[in-house]
């Protein structure tokens, strides 16, 4: 398999049930994403990597309607560009994660709606596969546990 995460330590991979990864400060409990060893709350420098899960609630959102300038690296032109959603998803672990959303219809996005993590084939990589990126899609209320 030649598909690889676009950056290390964003999510668990390879696995059939990926979850986001973050950092947790052993002193004050601050959670970071992406994981970093420095704590932005208490300024110490020995945070651990923890799992943040794969479900959360949409805290806010917007829709990106124009092709971003570089360094945006998806294989798109202004003509082929498809708008994408962007939101912050509040994870039960206690952090809000900024993420692309698979939904780009304002009528289908609502603050508070349950979301689930998906791993997207984002762009071609130089090994004949893809750069993998995390995103969130809606989770039907019935599946919310």
């Amino acid at each position, binding site marked *: 398999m030649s598909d690889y995460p*676009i*950056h290390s330590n*964003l999510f668990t991979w390879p696995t059939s049930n990926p979850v986001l990864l*973050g950092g947790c400060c052993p002193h004050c409990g*601050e*959670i*970071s*994403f*992406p994981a970093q060893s420095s704590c*932005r*709350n208490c300024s110490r420098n020995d945070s651990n990597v923890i799992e943040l899960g794969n479900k959360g609630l949409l*805290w*806010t*959102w*917007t*829709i*990106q*309607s*124009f092709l*971003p*300038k*570089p*360094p*945006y*690296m*998806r294989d798109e032109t202004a003509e082929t560009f498809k708008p*994408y959603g*962007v*939101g*912050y998803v*509040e994870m039960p672990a*206690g*952090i*809000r*994660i*900024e*993420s*692309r959303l698979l939904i780009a219809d*304002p009528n289908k996005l609502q*603050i508070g709606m349950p979301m689930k993590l998906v791993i997207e084939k*984002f*762009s071609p990589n130089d090994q004949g596969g893809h750069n993998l*990126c995390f995103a969130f899609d809606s989770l039907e209320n019935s599946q919310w546990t």
Partner: protein
Amino acid sequence: MDVAIIGLGMHPFGRSPQKTGLQQGAEAAREALADAGVDWKDIECGYGGSQDGGNADSIVNELGLSGLQFTNIFNGCATGGSSLHAAYSTIKSGEYRNALVLGFDKHPRGAFNPLPAEWGIDDWYGETGLMLTTQYFAMKIQRYMHEYDISEQALISVAEKAFYNGSINPTAWRRQALSREDIGTSQMVSHPLRKYMFCNPAEGAVALVICNAEEAKRYTDKPVFINAAIVRTRHYGSFEVFSPSQPVITADSPTVIASQAAYEQAGIGPADIDVAQLQDTESGAEIIHMAENGFCAHGEQEKLLEERYTSITGKLPVNTDGGCLANGEPVGASGLRQVHEICLQLRQEAGARQVRGKPKTGYTHVYGAPGISGVTILSR
């Protein structure tokens, strides 16, 4: 030592393809020096900045190699506020007697495209299309409108006011008033914000000459005094631009912290302010900043806008020159444009947009990436 603004200069905002950013800066500086009646060789120090227009200290190539101390400031949208703060502190300390404060810029068309590495973030964040200021502002106001039950009508009102004020400001870039319909049906850029609710990166320059207040009367009979100049950065828990994540706990924004410190330094409160300039890089920002700077409660804004409370004829005129929406945002110059406008208002030189009642006290506020705010309080 008290500090006074004695000279004002501006190169009109917009696009000036025939001039570099530095040349625009030099024009603004010459105008400020002439306004103050000070020779360049008598300026003792300078502080200035530009994001995309080159090094501000190169201004000596235009104005003359006078040997002065000149410090470049590079502080995002708060560059102007930080430059003024640095100059103010230097004069206040007594080290120098006068200073030039300079901001200019010249940005390419379209949205800013910041590089993650320059902001301490890994490349994937920009590569996957998350590093856009437009998205952040849209998401911030989306949440705010949800929490405080504010409708799209408030976003339209802010833009309508800005373009009207711009239409009567000869140095504004956007000088055509727009109807509510023009604004409310313009292209959706980043939901809920439409094309005419966003400002654009632009060009322009502003310069100020400041000096210790005891000497101000030697130069002008209309000095404007700096009662407070404050710059603050974000605390853990505030919701800021370029944040791949944010904590669930909330903290006051850098605007709230800078604002409170400024009122404390000036020894007055929001009710004492006669005219204000609040960062309005998009309509939503002005709405949020009305409350964050203490001028109303959260959620009160829509009613105040309906009552035209912040119009030029209202009780607290806000962004009388059209703000960022009508002037565009040359990052290095933008915060100083606010100060320039307040000085014109306090000097009764604002022409068609002059607020009534001879304003005595003014307020300026910038906010920018990655969570920085600059506030000044000025009086005559």
